[in-house]
């Protein structure tokens, strides 16, 4: 074999090796949960309805069946396990949250305050509230906080001993649940606004903060506000 051929073999195999490594890395990085797209109805152009549920365990069929996580109802009425929601800009987003998880006191009580919603309040089981005292009742289960949108919504927790407490998601309305509704405005700066839960709900992880808390699709995600 001449020199040229040997050099080509080395270069080609190096390129193949680098290619394989990059393919692996980007393949891993590009694994994302699906985005649920919410579109306004033709009759109400600047409003969208978003229906979510948060469960103690997302259940079988998902990457981490025993982790708590969020589901969103897509246009076909199917529950999709994800935290990526696409909504239009300059739009009022009406959110309905079905809460099936238990709660507890807040590590920092400031997260019990509702901010960034229209009226800075939520309707919890039919009652308008602007503050959840997590030291009362069964505390707060999870929160929806999108810092750059100023949005911070605590979600009231259930007692874990409810008779019909949901064990695996997606839960149904026959399970014990709280219903919380609120509305927020998406503004006129299209952007992927990150949101997260501020209740360390990663059971079994250091301070409750690993696992689902650090995983897109479970307790961390994006409100994708598009033009």
């Amino acid at each position, binding site marked *: 074999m001449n020199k040229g051929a040997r050099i080509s073999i080395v270069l080609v195999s190096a390129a193949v090796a680098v290619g394989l490594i990059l393919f692996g890395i980007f393949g891993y990085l590009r694994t994302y949960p699906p985005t649920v797209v919410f579109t306004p109805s033709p009759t109400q152009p600047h409003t969208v309805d978003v229906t979510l549920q948060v469960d103690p365990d997302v259940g079988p069929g998902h990457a981490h069946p025993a982790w708590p996580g969020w589901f969103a109802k897509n246009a076909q009425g199917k529950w999709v396990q994800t935290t990526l929601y696409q909504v239009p800009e300059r739009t009022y987003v009406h959110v309905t949250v079905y809460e099936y998880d238990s709660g*507890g006191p*807040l*590590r920092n009580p400031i997260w*019990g*305050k509702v901010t960034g919603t229209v009226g800075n309040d939520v309707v919890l089981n039919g009652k308008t509230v602007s503050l959840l005292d*997590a030291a009362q009742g069964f505390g707060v289960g999870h929160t929806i906080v999108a*810092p750059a949108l100023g949005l911070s919504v605590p979600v009231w927790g259930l007692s874990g001993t409810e008779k019909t407490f949901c064990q695996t998601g997606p839960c149904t309305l026959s399970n014990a649940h709280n219903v919380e509704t609120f509305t927020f405005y998406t503004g006129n700066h299209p952007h992927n606004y990150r949101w997260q839960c501020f209740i*360390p*709900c990663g059971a079994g992880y250091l*301070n409750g903060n690993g696992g689902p808390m650090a995983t897109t699709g479970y307790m961390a995600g994006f409100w994708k506000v598009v033009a």
Partner: protein
Amino acid sequence: MAMTEEAMRERKEYAKKAGWKIFAIWLVLSLIGEVLVLYVWGPHMPPGDMTTSAASQQFDFKVLTAMVVPVLLMVWVYGAWSLINFHATKTDRGDGIPLRGNRRVQGIWYVTSAALVLFLAGFGTYELINGNGVGSGEGPSPIWKPTAKHMLVVQVIAQQWRFTYRWPQFGGMETTSIDLPADTTIQFDVTSLDVIHDFWAYQLGVKADANPDVNNVAYTTTSNQLGRFTVRCDELCGIWHGAMYNYGHVVSKSAFYTWASNMEAQNASVTKLLPPFATTYTPSYSGAGGGYYPSYDPNGHAVTY
């Protein structure tokens, strides 16, 4: 091919002349460089002069750059001169001059670099411990405290993944945004609720680690330069570490008091629920918010939450 006496003397003459020329070029460029560094670039150096600490850091950068410029220029001028003039022609096969040590040049070299290094060591140490220096008024027990009678206390609470601010002089309210008054001495009490974070307000020249169960203090005094500053977490702390930043503003004193009293009113409902102000903000080991802390106190500390 050995050199004749004549040729050697000629070369020595030439080298001496070249040495003086190099020195002259270096001197002129250095003087120009110093003026540029101190008066043109210097006032725009980061982190600016929004606070005493920032101004002090800017001063340090100015001094360091001013010290470095002549050294750098010496290398560059000598290098450039050599590339242009000290190369042999294609036909030149002669030896160079046999080199002997030049005590005087060596002496100047040693003394100058020793003076430079010693100065920097002294200057650096002084700047570390002097008021508003980079290290004096920071840490769990700062060695320097500002003399200001009235200080605004701001507790910075880091957590995965956001900063909140606690204001003991405003009823112990907590906010998710930060405004600061101009011309005011500020005491930052920095702590964390969970893992290690770092409070870095770059334009304020303030940076302090946020460690759970530790109160890291940092002092600074704002100037009357109003504007926006960035608060950034500077310790890799998890998935949203990169998103753990927000913007604060230095505003006029009156604008600040308006903002603070608005915030106090807006947050009154939640302020009632907050634990009493403490310099650390450790969550209860009995498991507030998640319940995954160990059920005992691993350090044997009193729980301050």
